[in-house]
């Protein structure tokens, strides 16, 4: 918005708690802030709460207490706020979750038409550009099940970008992929980071963290154990738990 001073933080998370019905305390007084254009990588063992944290950011999971503010909009019970936040936050899932009954083209166009209320021509143009951006313009008229895993995930990224989000969340976007396809998806993500997209990425790909991340957060038992640059994690991790975890995944 013009005239207003640019907000420093686009994501502000203040002491959030989340307990699942099974009694698992997934997030414990979790706080963090993300700057505009910042790329944050979240690592941690499975069950550490990193996916839950990500899913709380767009309201996929309800928090028990604390506050989440995205680009100045509080994530509360107000439906308008929630819708606004869902439009501002794009999400990419581990299992792609493409719509199997729609073509690649329709997958990417759907939300532009329904949510952003774009005209058909505009939406088509944007979709063509997005498909070029993720490197598969020739697959526009295919159905998701005709694509490889890597291609599907790239379509999913294009679909999330189509609503022009200010923040992109990646929930283990490469974990379900065959090894030879991880590279192509990471490449798209790296390009996105270089273009200045604000990103929160849950991943085990330390190469990605080293190359593009501004900050790495190591989580365990719903808390931040350690955070710093990727370089810090590679050369000089402080906590014993961090060292143990890194020795296991590197």
């Amino acid at each position: 918005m013009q005239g207003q001073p640019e907000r420093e933080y686009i994501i502000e998370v203040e002491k959030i708690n989340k307990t699942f019905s099974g009694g698992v305390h997934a997030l414990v007084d979790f706080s963090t802030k993300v700057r505009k254009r910042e790329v944050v990588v979240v690592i941690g063992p499975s069950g550490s709460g990193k996916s839950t944290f990500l899913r709380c950011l767009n309201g996929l999971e309800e928090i028990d207490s604390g506050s989440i503010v995205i680009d100045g909009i509080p994530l509360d019970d107000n439906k308008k706020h929630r819708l606004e936040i869902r439009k501002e936050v794009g999400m990419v899932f581990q299992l792609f979750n493409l719509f199997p009954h729609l073509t690649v083209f329709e997958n990417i166009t759907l939300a532009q038409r329904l949510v952003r209320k774009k005209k058909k021509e505009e939406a088509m143009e944007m979709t063509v550009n997005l498909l070029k951006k993720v490197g598969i313009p020739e697959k526009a008229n295919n159905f998701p099940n005709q694509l490889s895993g890597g291609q599907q995930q790239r379509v999913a990224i294009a679909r999330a970008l189509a609503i022009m989000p200010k923040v992109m969340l990646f929930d283990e976007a490469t974990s379900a992929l065959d090894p030879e396809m991880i590279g192509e998806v990471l490449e798209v993500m790296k390009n996105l980071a270089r273009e200045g997209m604000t990103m929160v990425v849950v991943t085990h790909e330390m190469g990605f963290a080293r190359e593009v991340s501004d900050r790495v957060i190591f989580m365990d038992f719903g808390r931040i154990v350690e955070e710093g640059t990727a370089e810090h994690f590679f050369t000089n991790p402080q906590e014993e738990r961090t060292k143990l975890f890194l020795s296991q995944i590197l």
Partner: protein
Amino acid sequence: MYRKKKTKITSLDIILLSVLLIGVAFVVYRVTVGLNYKWNWGAMLQYIVRYDKETHRYVSNLLLQGMFTTLRLSFWGTILAILFGTLMGLFRVSTSLFKRMVGRSYVELIRNMPPLVFIFIFYFFISDQIMPLMGVDDFIRSSSPGVQNFFDIILASPELFSATVSALFSLGIFEGAYITEIVRAGIQSIERGQWEASYGLGLSKYQQMRYVILPQALQRILPPLAGQFISLIKDSAIVSVISVQELSFQGTQIMASTYYTIEIWTFVAALYLIMTLSCSLAVERLEVHMARSR
């Protein structure tokens, strides 16, 4: 698709088949020789088509007319059942407690009541009150011959109009309860990721359902849905109790006037089989087609 297995005939099969044949032969023997019954298959044909001496043409007679009424009932009943079933199916998966309760009550009430009882309650209590209120009878009686003729072709003759509409609603509401459960199961079978992805894209609840979930659910429930329509054809026989002149009703009428009991019901059964089996074949085709397009 399944690979076709080679049929292998064992000695056990031969023994069983022989026993079966002997059994059938015995029944036929008992029926022809032992039963004190005069067979008259020839008389049956005239109840299907008869020669009209005035117009010098063959015209459909009671059984065929009954079959057409059954088809009309099934067609419109299906449409009503889909409407009720989809609406209530959506209620069943709604987040609103009230809607869920309405959906649940509907399903449990209908499915746990004998259809015959339901038809009687509906016909004598409800439509007896509602039909005059809605002016269904007045409407059809006061409309022009053209309109009456039109409704005669697509639904029923003026004198049976009210009863037929009532029958249609009973059938629709009755089968709708089963379709409700099919729709609910279909919606619930869609992976959570589909909801999450469409939620994440900013689609409203309605849009998520309309553009993402329902189209996929529909694909999955088409086979059981088609099966339910076949049930509807069979279940439509029940409305004979409220004097709608469909196939079973005509069967009863002819039986009462001719006493050719076995012949009549054999013919009626055959006509039902023609309707249901052709539907089954169509459904089978549809399933193969859908399996291929996956």
